[in-house]
């Protein structure tokens, strides 16, 4: 029996050495381990072996069977490992540096700057309002204390319309009266201060070049309450602008004349480029004229229904105007204002963020 097993082992080993895939392995396994397989044949021969040798021969066959089984198990793992290796080897290693499509759209730069500012104002408790682009004479001028014959009302600067008393709004201040009438009742009933900003398109009859546009964006803001003071105005402007420019800005106020504020100011910020030492972008003055502001004129508050003839100073407030188009130019380094309204995708598609 020993010899027979040895012959069989030799045969098994030589056949096993040639096996390289799962199906051949199974074939080989069946030829040895199945009921009709070579080992079963040995088992059958056991009956012809003398009884005293039977035990030993049985043990030999069993040992051989186990040996074959473990070889099969090993081989199976080996083949799987090989297959996995082949699969891995066959897999392509991808080159991420190959240019790939990046289908991103873009926002208009005004949308970007407007959102940024609206976020800041909302975080400071301001309502964000929207207003018409077509307004009437009353809202654009009269309610703002701009007298009948003021140059701002001249035809050559303002786009009047063929409809009665209407024009394309020449400044966002045209919304002040609307804001006051909308939020005034709440101010009086529950003491909720009026804090609102209203961005919008404005129109002025200008010849267009790199620095001038007839269609541009402003953002106006008002704050009205019982005791709003000049001191509050300066504090607020400084805080707000520091947020806008993401650094502590130095502001200064100088007298400026606008019919709808009194006192009125021109607000300058210390030049962000040179820090006040003087450079070409601040024309060597160290300051940049940034936005007009002021205490809302008593007549404007009266027109807005905030104060009465009898008590013209019950509530006070301030207003300010930011040039959104100009801020966007400063922020994104746009040198030619025409980029904004001429719809060149090459230029506009760069404004992708947010």
């Amino acid at each position, binding site marked *: 029996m020993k010899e027979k097993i040895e012959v069989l082992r030799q045969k098994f080993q030589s056949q096993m050495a040639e096996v390289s895939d799962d199906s051949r392995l199974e074939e080989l396994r069946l030829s040895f381990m199945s009921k009709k397989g070579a080992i079963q044949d040995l088992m059958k021969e056991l009956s012809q072996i003398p009884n005293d040798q039977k035990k030993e021969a049985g043990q030999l066959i069993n040992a051989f069977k186990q040996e074959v089984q473990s070889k099969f198990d090993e081989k199976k793992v080996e083949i799987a490992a090989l297959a996995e290796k082949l699969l891995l080897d066959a897999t392509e290693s991808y080159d991420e540096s190959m240019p790939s499509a990046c*289908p*991103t*759209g*873009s926002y208009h730069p005004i*949308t970007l700057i407007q*959102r940024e500012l609206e976020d800041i104002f909302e975080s400071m*408790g*301001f*309502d*964000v309002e*929207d207003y018409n682009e*077509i307004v009437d004479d009353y809202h654009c001028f009269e309610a703002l204390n701009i007298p009948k*014959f003021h*140059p701002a009302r001249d*035809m050559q600067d303002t*786009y*009047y*319309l*063929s*409809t009665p008393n*209407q024009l*394309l709004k020449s400044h966002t201040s045209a919304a002040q009266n609307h804001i006051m009438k909308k939020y005034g009742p709440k101010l009086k009933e529950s*003491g*909720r*201060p009026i804090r609102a900003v209203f961005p919008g398109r404005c*129109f002025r009859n200008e010849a267009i070049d790199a620095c001038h546009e*007839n*269609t541009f964006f402003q953002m106006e803001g008002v*704050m009205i*309450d019982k*005791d*709003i*003071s*000049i*001191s*509050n105005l*300066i*504090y*607020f402007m*400084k805080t707000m602008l520091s947020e806008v420019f993401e650094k502590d800005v130095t502001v*200064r*106020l*100088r*007298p*400026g*004349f606008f019919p709808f504020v*009194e*006192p*009125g100011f*021109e607000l300058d910020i210390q030049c962000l480029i040179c820090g006040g030492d003087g450079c070409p972008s601040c024309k060597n003055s160290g300051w940049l004229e940034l936005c007009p502001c002021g*205490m809302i*004129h*008593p007549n404007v508050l009266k027109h807005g229904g905030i104060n009465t003839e009898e008590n013209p*100073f019950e509530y*006070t407030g301030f207003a300010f105007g930011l040039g959104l188009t100009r801020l966007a130019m400063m922020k994104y380094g746009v040198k030619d204002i025409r980029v904004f*309204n001429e*719809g060149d*995708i*090459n230029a*506009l598609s760069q404004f992708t963020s947010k």
Partner: protein
Amino acid sequence: MLVSMNWIKDFVNLDGEDLEKLIKRFTLSTAEVEDIFYKGSDVSNVVVGEIISCENHPDSDHLHVLKVDGGDAIYDVVCGAPNARAGIKTAFAKVGGQVGDIKIKPAKLRGVESNGMCCSEKEIGISDNHEGIMELDPSYANGTDIKEIFPIDDVVFEVDNKSLTNRPDLWGHYGMAREFAALTGQKVKELEVMENPYTGDKTVDVEIRNNELCYRYTSVRVENITKTQSLDYMKIRLYYCGTRAINLLADLTNYLMLELGQPMHAFDGTKIGKIVVDTPKENCKFTTLDGIERDITTDTLMIHDGDTPVAVAGIMGGLDSEIKDDTNSLVLESANFDGVSIRKSASRLALRTDASARYEKTLDPEMTMLAVKRFLKLLFDVDQDAQVASLITDVYTKKYPELSVEFDKKFIDRYTGIDISADRIKNTLEALGFETKMDGENFVSKVPTWRATKDVSMKADIVEEITRIYGYDNFEIKTTLSPLLPAKTSKLRIEENAIKDLLVKAYAMNEVHSRIWQDEDDLKAIELEVEDNVKLLGFSENVGVLRNSMMQTLLPFVNKNKNVKPDFSIFEVGRVVLGTNEDGTANERRHLGIVLYSKTETEKTLYFRGVEIVNTIVDQLKHKKATYEKIEMTHAFMHPKNTSSISVKGEKIGTINTMYPKNLAKIAKNASIVMIEIDMDDLLKIEPKALDFKEPSKFPGIDYDLSLVIPEGLRFETIERCWKKGRNNLKDVSVIDVYDNGKVKSVTIRFHFENDERTLTSEEVQEVIDKTLLNLKDINVELKV
């Protein structure tokens, strides 16, 4: 406006003040200073030099060789001036000195040594006269520093005129000086004037026929004027302030205007009999003193001599009555005219002068008399032989009311938010000319006439006066004490932002801004015409007509960008005007316009992308479904077959369409365009459906697919009516495949059945399917075999 500090110092003592600092404070307290010029800082070592001898240069036909006595020595100088000659005294720049950009060094001119330079007025910067070297009064000692004779050194600053629009009082040096006085805690000195020495009873005959437009006319006649030249200091000041010296009388009127801000006009006394101020009865021609003949309309205020026009009031005099160098008598005009009328006339005539610029600001009529008396004083400083030949005639038709403002310190404290002492309040106002009575903390301030024409009338104005002089830099700044209450983003803004985010991020679109009006050329380029609508006034036909669709401005953008990329989409949220409302006002609407453009995709694919975009917008914002209905085209650029309205629950919100082939071909051959226009205000009105959460079923569902052949022209929404989602356990229906070979069109629809409480049997599902198939048969939809 240019301001000379030497001039200012006539009226306020600034000894020991740092002028540069003071001027910077002026910016913060009064008006914006744009530039500061240090006049005379580039002139040094220039003295009175006497030309002792003058020989022709041996090697030149125009140069002279001079010996100049510079006081300390005799200098050899080569000079090219035509008026160089022995015996005259001139301005002589010595070696080591400087005139303008020229540093004086010893030099050789055509072989002859030259040590110094004889100067013209232009070279030392006091006029633009460069005809020859200066000829000085022989009484000056040789070697005297030129700066001792001429006030060359001055600090001149330029104020932004725009920042003076509301301050008529600042259009002259005297008013400016008042500001400097207030800034340095002083009061401005009184102006020196001359009372009229004339004792007869003659007047200037003045009649104001239009007293709406002329408030006051003050005049005097002066004769026997023999001097023709102004004093040097006056010429230099005029020059530094941007005006050329002409002759004594013209210079004096200019000087007065720059000093007081009061424009004046001197007529040739021999040409004026009776002054009449009126608008002409009919349009006429008139030649102004610049020699230009102008068309005068009947709303232009004119000064007449009797019936003959002699000046455009407040703007410019006439050529015929102009003062000449040899004029020896004058009739002086010092008047006050309506500011608006002057501005309109100046703009009509396209003739904006220094005088009209001042009148526009609404000048103080009180000034006219003062100006006349000041004129006499300055004239007699030069010409003691002149004779006043009339009383000062003063016709004053329109006087402003006197204004006083009452206020208390509490008001000032509240408005400023800081504590400015009562004394400081009083002193500031007094320095600015507001006579102020103080009783404890109560004040009454009289507004000075020069501030009362429009600028100051109430308490808030008084606050400005006090605070600007106090200085905003000196303010303690504080936050408000307003209550804390929520401020929420408006629904309008949320929707607008959501749509922009969706279009940019999910559909890679480019947001653009276009103008609100149609552009005829842009439209013509794609064979479209301007559509009639509300328009801008004052523009010719087809110009400035507002858009009634976003497409009128977006399609030209597509046309402009067609070669940038083969595929792109643009959008804008903007305003359109849909004609007029019942009351005649413009019907302004907020619209979203989207244009999809592709050269690689079929129009059909693009169109369904458009539908998908609309569906997504409506679903994301409203949790509702958009429905479509074919409509007639409403604009020429729309396709007659594929133009549909978009509605949500029966409310129309917009349109989607492809482009009319003719116009499409103009943009590009083989390109596809799809347009979407949504009325954002209509969309905003649609209430979003609230979220209604349902627990997912724990029991498995059953899917049942049907492949259906769709007859030509049958819309899917008709097929959809054959089943009822939400009933009979039919939870969801989706199209999983569409087949269309041009002849046969079929769709595969997956019906998903599900029940929350049990597992469904195939029988009950089959029952619903069978019913559906019967319904489908009714509309001739068969199963695909």
